């Protein structure tokens, strides 16, 4: 054990270095804080989302009680419930459905029977029982999270809403009778909750209700699992930003260790053992980890608060998952932030720490060339890079699953980053050979000498640029495909919904008289091969035959579907169930049809199938049939819309022009990727900072290299310009390498990650003008980073350059 006074003395000597080099201290703290902030910000978002999912599960299936459900996913007749009760089964009925309100918002409606409902299904309101007389009596009462309650208050024709904090956002709880009315599902229930303490003498389920099956509590739809891919995506981005930040920390700590090599030896000479030296160094690093970690967590909280609304929008758009829009400071999040900062510091400082521990006490005290790489090291590095890249390609070709996809992506990035120093060294050596002028030759040789010191920062820049190119290519490809797909899918000029089932035939008749075509767009929630999904009706019309975005199709696809002899399925259903042409789909246990085609359905989290209108009506005669697409000359669309709206007294949200829907869809799309954009910019900013700090710290060690050249007749101003040129040239090399790496990254995202995460694959589209813009940004960042050291060099007093010769030993 090291004695306290000795510990204090040694620690004060080590820490004093940082007070004498505040710039270096700031770099270290900022680097570590940024790395921690980006990581913990993402973790905060994930934690918040998961807490919301847990809350939702707590509301929807909180008790671990088993349920009775129909195996075909259809509602259970109320009579069956009564039969079960008479047979001794103790159950509580529950009805579930989607509550649509004006404005297009959808909420999960949960109807419970307050008398029999288990305690766990009753939300707690803080001041006692929520299932009071108002809940069951009169027009009923809706219970919802305060945010959801606010959204519902504006909706007409709904019972009063009472805000209840403990209910998850997006979920509405009502009495079962009220819910059945709102969902228009009279005399049915969705499931029966099996209450505890069932009497032993009761008739077997197979005898009294064979259509029902007992399902365990966790067999329901798990939004947490569904959104895992999105959170993994965010985590990967957080990790990338963290890694880029660690490059800064690694560089700074490495430099500080080199600068203090003499101090370490002196401390050893003055009586500190190697073990004590290591303990003191670890304590020093822990101090930084704690300070920077805390700052990082605070910064991470701000980042999370800034990004969470967009993340919430993304989750709602992609998965229908609703999360709260505010970040809560959770103790485990603090702990994980400090832990990651400590871990990051440990990783970044491991090499330096090892060198300190092994430092020979009597070796020459002058600092060795900082991070100098021998040609042998470069060879090893290239070998390792090639190995990593081959493994990445192997994983992409043969690997399955999201985790392996991300692993391939990580290997690709790390492998590409490792190729940078050997490629640069080879390139610069070649330039040096072919250079004719003495000054040019020196310039290339000197640049080559700087590469080891700058390589970490350049690798960080490479990662950030590649990630930027990769992600923006992915988003751009998505946007191009999505816009084209919207044009195909939204072929009708007007989309209209009747106010109710009674009005629908009149509306349809009027439209048929006044428009070119009326296309029923009716949907019902059912099961597709036993899995919950959407079933839509599709009219036999040229609109679909000419426009529908089919990815695969059999011959006579449209004729077969129109005849009710085949079904079309979306890409999500095809990929998740691994079915396609030649396979068949069981529709709600009512009909099994062969698949005639697969269509793209971007942005839809659900599995979906399309059948002809007559077949749809035959299978679901009771289902809602109020929505239509209307084909008309686009120039007449606005007038017809106004006419229909007035004639049928339709609220604005029930009749929408195609252009409006496209505008909304694109807005949702842009918001979906705003999180990615923000993280992209932050990562790039961190990389820019890494370049800046590397150039700044290297500049302090450059004088011994520059002073001899200055003494031979190159002016300080000329040297400064050369320094600037060097930074720009290295940035250009890095950008050139980042483009192919970024394209490869985009391909992995589109062809591997997207398919695994969302169930659809997108074509790759390249955007060279975006790269040029990014290159310009990187060059400006490099120029700015080099400007301060270059300016300092141009203005350095000759006496300081002369000192190099007098101090050199």
């Amino acid at each position: 054990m090291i004695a306290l006074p000795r510990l204090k003395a040694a620690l004060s000597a080590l820490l004093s270095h940082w007070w004498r080099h505040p710039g270096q201290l700031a770099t270290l703290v900022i680097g570590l804080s940024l790395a921690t902030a980006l990581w913990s910000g993402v973790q905060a978002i994930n934690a918040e989302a998961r807490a919301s999912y847990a809350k939702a599960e707590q509301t929807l299936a909180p008790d671990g009680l088993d349920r009775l459900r129909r195996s075909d996913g259809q509602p259970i007749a109320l009579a069956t419930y009564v039969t079960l009760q008479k047979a001794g089964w103790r159950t509580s009925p529950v009805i579930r459905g989607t509550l649509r309100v004006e404005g297009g918002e959808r909420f999960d409606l949960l109807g419970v029977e307050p008398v029999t409902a288990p305690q766990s299904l009753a939300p707690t309101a803080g001041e006692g029982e929520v299932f009071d007389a108002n809940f069951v009596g009169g027009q009923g009462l809706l219970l919802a999270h305060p945010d959801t309650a606010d959204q519902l208050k504006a909706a007409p024709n709904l019972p009063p809403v009472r805000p209840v904090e403990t209910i998850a956002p997006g979920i509405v709880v009502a009495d079962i009778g009220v819910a059945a009315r709102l969902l228009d599902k009279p005399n049915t229930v969705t499931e029966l909750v099996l209450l505890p303490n069932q009497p032993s003498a009761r008739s077997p389920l197979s005898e009294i209700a064979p259509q029902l099956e007992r399902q365990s509590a966790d067999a329901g739809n798990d939004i947490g699992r569904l959104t895992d891919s999105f959170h993994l995506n965010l985590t990967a981005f957080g990790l990338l930003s963290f890694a880029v930040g660690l490059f800064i920390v690694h560089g700074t700590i490495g430099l500080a260790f080199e600068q203090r090599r003499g101090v370490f030896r002196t401390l050893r000479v003055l009586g500190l053992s190697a073990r004590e030296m290591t303990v003191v160094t670890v304590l020093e690093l822990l101090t930084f980890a704690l300070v920077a970690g805390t700052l990082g967590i605070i910064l991470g909280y701000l980042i999370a608060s800034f990004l969470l609304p967009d993340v919430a929008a993304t989750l709602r758009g992609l998965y229908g998952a609703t999360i709260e829009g505010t970040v809560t400071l959770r103790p485990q999040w603090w702990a994980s932030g400090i832990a990651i900062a400590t871990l990051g510091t440990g990783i970044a400082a491991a090499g330096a720490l090892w060198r300190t521990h092994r430092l020979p006490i009597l070796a020459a005290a002058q600092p060795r060339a900082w991070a100098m790489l021998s040609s042998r090291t470069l060879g090893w590095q290239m070998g390792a890079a090639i190995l990593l890249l081959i493994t990445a390609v192997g994983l992409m070709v043969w690997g399955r699953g999201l985790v392996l996809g991300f692993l391939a992506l990580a290997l690709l990035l790390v492998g590409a980053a490792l190729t940078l120093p050997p490629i640069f060294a080879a390139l610069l050596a070649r330039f040096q050979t072919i250079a004719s002028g003495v000054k040019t030759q020196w310039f290339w040789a000197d640049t080559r000498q700087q590469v080891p010191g700058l390589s970490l920062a350049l690798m960080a820049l490479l990662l950030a640029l590649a990630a930027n190119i990769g992600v923006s290519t992915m988003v751009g490809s998505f946007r191009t495909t999505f816009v084209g797909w919207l044009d195909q899918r939204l072929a009708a000029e007007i989309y209209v919904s009747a106010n109710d089932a009674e009005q629908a035939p009149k509306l349809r008749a009027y439209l048929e008289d006044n428009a070119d075509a009326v296309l029923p767009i009716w949907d019902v929630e059912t099961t597709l091969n036993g899995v919950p999904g959407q079933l839509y009706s599709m009219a036999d019309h040229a609109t679909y035959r000419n426009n529908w975005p089919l990815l695969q199709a059999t011959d006579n696809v449209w004729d077969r579907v129109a005849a009710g002899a085949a079904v079309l399925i979306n890409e999500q259903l095809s990929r998740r169930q691994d079915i396609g042409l030649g396979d068949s789909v069981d529709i709600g246990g009512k009909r099994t049809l062969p698949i005639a085609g697969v269509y793209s359905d971007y942005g839809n989290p659900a599995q979906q199938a399309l059948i002809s209108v007559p077949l749809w009506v035959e299978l679901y005669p009771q289902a809602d049939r109020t929505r239509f697409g209307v084909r008309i000359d686009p120039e007449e669309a606005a007038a017809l819309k106004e006419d229909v709206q007035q004639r049928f007294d339709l609220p604005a949200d029930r009749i929408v022009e195609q252009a409006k829907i496209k505008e909304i869809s694109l807005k949702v799309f842009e918001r979906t990727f705003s999180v990615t954009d923000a993280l992209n910019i932050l990562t790039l900013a961190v990389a820019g900072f890494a370049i800046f700090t590397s150039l700044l710290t290297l500049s302090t060690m450059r004088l011994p290299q520059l002073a001899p050249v200055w003494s031979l007749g190159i002016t300080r101003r000329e040297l400064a310009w050369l320094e600037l040129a060097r930074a720009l040239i290295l940035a250009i090399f890095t950008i050139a390498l980042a483009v192919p790496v970024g394209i490869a990254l985009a391909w992995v995202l589109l062809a591997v990650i997207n398919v695994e995460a969302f169930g659809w694959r997108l074509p790759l589209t390249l955007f060279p003008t975006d790269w040029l813009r990014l290159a310009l940004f990187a060059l400006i960042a490099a120029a700015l980073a080099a400007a301060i050291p270059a300016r300092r060099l141009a203005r350095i007093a000759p006496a300081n350059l002369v000192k190099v010769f007098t101090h050199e030993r």
Partner: protein
Amino acid sequence: MLVRAQQVHKSFATSDGPLPVLRGVDLSVEAGERVALTGESGSGKSTLLYLIAGLDGVDSGTIEIDGKDIAALDDAGRAELRRTRVGIIFQQFNLIPSLTVKDNLRFHARLAGREDAAWTDQLTQRLGLTDFIKRYPEQLSGGQQQRVAIGRTLAAKPALVLADEPTGNLDEETGDAVIALMLDLVKENDAGLLMVTHSNRLAATMERQVHLSAGKLA
């Protein structure tokens, strides 16, 4: 006996095989004795000094400090020896650049756990460093830095001071002044001193001179 070295052998590995530097050195230093160690460049003077300081290990032979064989000590034991019994003054000063003169002066004593503020203040005054205590080493001349290095060593009150050409980087006049001061302070402190020097003139100021030649004491 403060230091007793017997049949000390030391060689260094080179690409042409081991290079013997010390070939059976016997040396002793009494408490309070001041000894000059002279010899040609490469004769092994500094190597012998570092072996006595426990900075490196012997190939064979023994070195005892206060009757304890330092070859038997592990890294922590040798560190404790340097901290508490031995003070080393280098030609290159080896001050801690990020600490002020004052902190550098106190540093070794703090590590040894026997800081004596009055003694440090006295040293500061006698070494002529009072006006510079808030400065950093880089802001001092070579002579001033060497005085700080001497002060740092003596502030810890070591029983044995090992000095490796302490005036090698100083001009003659400054060097003489620094040595005179160091000898006075060592004497007052009743410490033993073993000083490596090239200068016969400086060596003559010591109580005893030993000459190292071809790896053996003459």
